C-alpha cells in the first residue's frame, strides 16, 4: 500500500514497520468499533467550518491564559519521532502554561483513528498530515480551515516554496501550515563505490552516469541498485513517472495519468535493473535498504526519513544527492508534512489559542526538524546559515524547484492500490507492462469518478 513508503513508516526498515503494524491491527478493530458507535454521535451532524475567529490573534500574540495541555497526534513512528519529541520538549520548557504531549500512531492507522476521534469529540488539538491527505480530510470535515492562523501569523506564499504552500489549500481554504517538504533522494554507498572503482564523492546526476556506475558494479559482481516488485510502487517509480513527463493523477481529479507512456517507461526502467542484472530477481520489499546498509548495493532512491536510521549504522559510509535525471525532465516525488487543526465538537478558546501558538513556534523552529532529514518548509529556516551545517538534508533541499505532489483532490490516494498492483504484476512479468497499466487505469478512473460524486 502506498502509505508504507511514507515517512514515519519506512517499508525499508524491518523492525519499525513490524512493530508499528502490531498496534495497527488492534487499532483497526478499535477504529471499526468507534466508527460504528461514532456514527450516531452528534459529531457527524455538527456544523463544520463554522469556525469562530479565535482570540489571541491566531497564535501570534502568545498565550497567557490558564495552564492547558494539548494533544498532538502524528504518524512519526520512525527515526523522525524522537526528533519531533525533542522539539516539543523544548517548546514545553519555554511555555509554562502550555504542555504539548505527542502521540505517534503509524500513518495508516492514524488516518483511521483521527476521524473516529473527531466524531466522538476526542480529537487532539493539533495534528500532522501529508499534503496529499489534506483534501480528503478537509472534505470529510476531519480538519478545519486555519486561514486565521496563516493571516494572524502573517504567513504568505513568500515564506514557503510555492508548491508546499499551495499543498495546504483545499477549495481555496487553508487547511495546513507546511512544516517540511520531503522529496526522494539518491543515497549512495561510498564503500561500494570505492570497491567497484567509482568516485565515492561524485554521485551520478544523469541516467547515463548512473548506468555507467551500475555497469562497473556488475563487472565486479555487485548488484548495484536493488529493486523489488513489492515496493517499487512508491516514490521510486512515481519519481520516474514525473521525470518521463507524466502525472500520477490528472489535475481535474477525474482520471489517472500513470497509465500513459511515462508510466510504462518508469516501470520499464526499474524492470530493466532486474533484466540487466543490476538487481537480483525477487528481492524482498526492503531489499533496497537491506542491501544498501549491508554494503551490497551502491545506490537506492529513497526518502529523507532514512537519514536517521542510516546515521545510526556506524560502519556505513553514505551520502545523499538529488535524484539523477533519468527520464529527461528534472522532477522528483515529494511529500510534505503539514500542521492541521482537527475539528473539535466543543471549542475551548484557551486550547484553540494555545495550539496556534504551538504551530507558529514549531514552524519557526523547524531548523531542528532538519535533523530528521526533512527539508524545512519555512524559507527563513533554510536561508539561515545554520542550515548549511545539516548535512544530507541540503542535498534534498536542492530539488525544491521541481518537486511533484498529486493534485489536492479528496480521496486521491484511493487509486494507489491499483498502481501498486499494476507495478507489481508488470515487474514480475506476470503481465505486459501496458496491459497491467491499462487495467489499473480502468479501475482507478472509476474510483476517481465515484469519489468525485461522493465528495462533490
Amino acid at each position, binding site marked *: 500500500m502506498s502509505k508504507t513508503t511514507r515517512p514515519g513508516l519506512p517499508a525499508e526498515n524491518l523492525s519499525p514497520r513490524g512493530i508499528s503494524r502490531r498496534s495497527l*491491527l488492534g487499532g483497526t478493530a478499535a477504529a471499526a468499533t468507534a466508527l460504528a458507535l461514532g456514527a450516531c454521535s452528534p459529531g457527524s451532524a455538527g456544523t463544520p467550518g463554522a469556525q469562530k475567529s479565535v482570540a489571541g490573534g491566531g497564535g501570534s500574540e502568545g498565550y497567557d491564559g490558564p495552564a492547558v495541555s494539548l494533544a498532538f497526534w502524528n504518524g512519526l513512528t520512525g527515526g523522525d519521532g524522537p526528533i519531533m519529541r525533542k522539539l516539543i520538549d523544548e517548546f514545553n520548557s519555554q511555555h509554562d502554561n502550555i504542555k504539548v504531549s505527542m502521540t505517534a500512531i503509524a500513518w495508516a492507522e492514524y488516518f483511521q483513528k483521527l476521524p473516529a476521534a473527531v466524531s466522538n469529540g476526542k480529537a487532539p488539538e493539533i495534528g500532522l498530515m501529508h499534503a496529499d491527505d489534506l483534501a480528503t480530510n478537509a472534505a470529510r470535515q476531519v480538519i478545519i480551515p486555519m486561514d486565521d492562523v496563516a493571516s494572524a501569523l502573517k504567513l504568505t506564499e513568500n515564506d514557503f516554496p510555492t508548491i508546499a504552500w499551495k499543498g495546504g489549500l483545499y477549495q481555496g481554504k487553508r487547511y495546513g501550515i507546511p512544516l517540511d517538504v520531503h522529496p526522494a533522494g539518491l543515497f549512495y554507498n561510498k564503500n561500494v563505490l570505492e570497491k567497484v572503482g567509482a568516485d565515492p564523492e561524485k554521485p551520478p546526476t544523469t541516467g547515463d552516469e548512473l548506468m555507467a556506475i551500475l555497469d562497473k558494479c556488475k563487472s565486479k559482481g555487485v548488484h548495484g541498485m536493488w529493486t523489488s516488485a513489492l515496493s517499487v510502487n512508491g516514490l521510486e517509480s512515481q519519481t520516474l513517472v514525473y521525470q518521463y513527463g507524466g502525472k500520477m493523477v490528472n489535475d481535474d481529479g477525474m482520471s489517472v495519468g500513470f497509465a500513459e507512456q511515462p508510466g510504462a517507461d518508469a516501470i520499464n526502467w526499474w524492470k530493466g535493473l532486474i533484466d540487466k542484472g543490476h538487481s537480483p530477481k525477487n528481492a*524482498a*520489499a526492503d531489499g533496497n535498504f537491506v542491501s544498501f546498509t549491508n554494503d551490497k548495493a551502491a545506490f537506492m532512491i529513497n526518502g529523507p526519513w532514512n537519514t536517521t536510521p542510516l546515521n545510526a549504522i556506524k560502519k556505513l559510509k553514505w551520502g545523499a544527492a538529488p535524484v539523477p535525471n533519468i527520464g529527461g525532465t528534472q522532477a522528483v516525488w515529494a511529500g510534505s508534512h503539514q500542521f492541521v487543526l482537527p475539528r473539535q465538537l466543543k471549542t475551548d478558546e484557551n486550547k484553540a489559542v494555545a495550539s496556534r501558538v504551538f504551530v507558529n513556534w514549531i514552524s519557526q523552529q523547524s531548523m531542528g526538524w532538519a535533523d530528521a532529514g526533512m527539508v524545512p518548509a519555512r524559507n527563513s529556516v533554510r536561508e539561515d546559515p545554520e542550515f548549511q551545517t545539516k548535512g544530507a538534508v541540503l542535498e534534498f533541499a536542492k530539488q525544491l524547484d521541481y518537486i511533484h505532489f498529486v493534485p489536492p483532490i479528496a480521496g486521491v490516494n484511493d487509486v494507489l492500490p491499483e498502481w501498486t498492483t499494476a507495478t507489481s504484476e508488470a515487474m*514480475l512479468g506476470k503481465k505486459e507492462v501496458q496491459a497491467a497499466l491499462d487495467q489499473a487505469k480502468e479501475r482507478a478512473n472509476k474510483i476517481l469518478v465515484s469519489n468525485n460524486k461522493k465528495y462533490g
Partner: protein
Amino acid sequence: MSATATTARTKVDPAVDRPAGRLRVHAWFTPYLFLLPYLALLTTFVLVPAVFGIWVSLHDWDFMLPNKPFIGLQNYVDLFTPDSVTFPEFWNGMKATAIFTVASVPFLVLIPLGIALMLNRVFPARSLLRAMIFAPFVLGIAVVGVLFRYLLDSQFGLINWFLGLFGIPPVGWTQTQPWAWVALVGMTVWWTLGFNAVIYLAGLQGIPRDQYEAAAIDGAGSFARFINVTLPGLRNILVFIITTTVLASANMFGQAYLVTNGGPGDSTRTAIMVMTQEGLRAFKMGSATAMSYLLAICLAVVSVINFMVLREREGGK
C-alpha cells in the same frame, strides 16, 4: 448433585430457615438476570452493530459526511455487476480467501491430530513438548509477521540459506506464486496448530481407556483402533475444529498484510484486506459492509454444509 442437594432440602424447613429459603426463592426473571451481562455485551457489540451494518450497507455511507445518500441495494448489486468499481477487487479477494482456506484447513486439521496422538503417549519431557507446540499460538500476528519476513527474505533469509546448502537456488517466497501461498499457509500452520492440537488432546483424553482395551481384546491392531475407537470418539471435536478452522482461515488478514502485502500483484489480497481498504482507507463503509455481509453469508453456508456432511457420516455408522 442430586443426593446431597435433596437431603439438604428435606432437612431444612423453608419457612423457618431464612437464609437457605431466600436462596431458593426466585422469580421468573432470575435466569435472565444471570444472563444479563452476557446479553448486554452481545447486544452492544454484536447485535446492534450487525443490524446497524445492514442499514449502513444500504447507503453510500461515510460516517464523517453529513450526507449519506440512501441507495437501496445498489452496494450489493455492484458486487454482482462485473464492470462496477467494487466487483473485481471483491471477487479477487474472495478467490484469494478461498485458496487460502482450501490450502490451509487440511493441514490445520490433520497435522495437529497427528501431533496430539503423539503427545498423548507417555514419554519423557512430554509436558515440555506440549508447551513448545502451543507456544507460537501465544505470539501476536505482528511478531509472527516480522519473524517470517526475516525467515522468508529471498536474499538474506534463513530458509533460502538452508535450501542453498542443498544447491537449491533462492526462492522468492513473498514475490512469486505459488510460493507466496506456500509461505503463508506454512507460517499459519506453524503459528496456529498448537491450538487445534490442544483441543484434540483434550478430546483424546476423554475417550475411555476400556474401549481401547476391548478393541485390543477383539484383535484390533493400532490402525484399526484408531479408525474404530479414536476417530468416532473425536467426532464432536472434529466438527468443532473443522468449523472454527474454516472460519479462522476465511478471516485471514494479518499474514498477507504483513508478509506479502497482498502481492505478488493482488494474488494474496484477501477479502478482509479488500474490505479494510474499501471501508477504512477509502471510507466507503456502505460497500465495505455489503462485502462483509456477503462474506458472512458464504461462511454461514460453508459452516452449515460442514455440519451436514459430518452429521451424515454419523448417521451412516
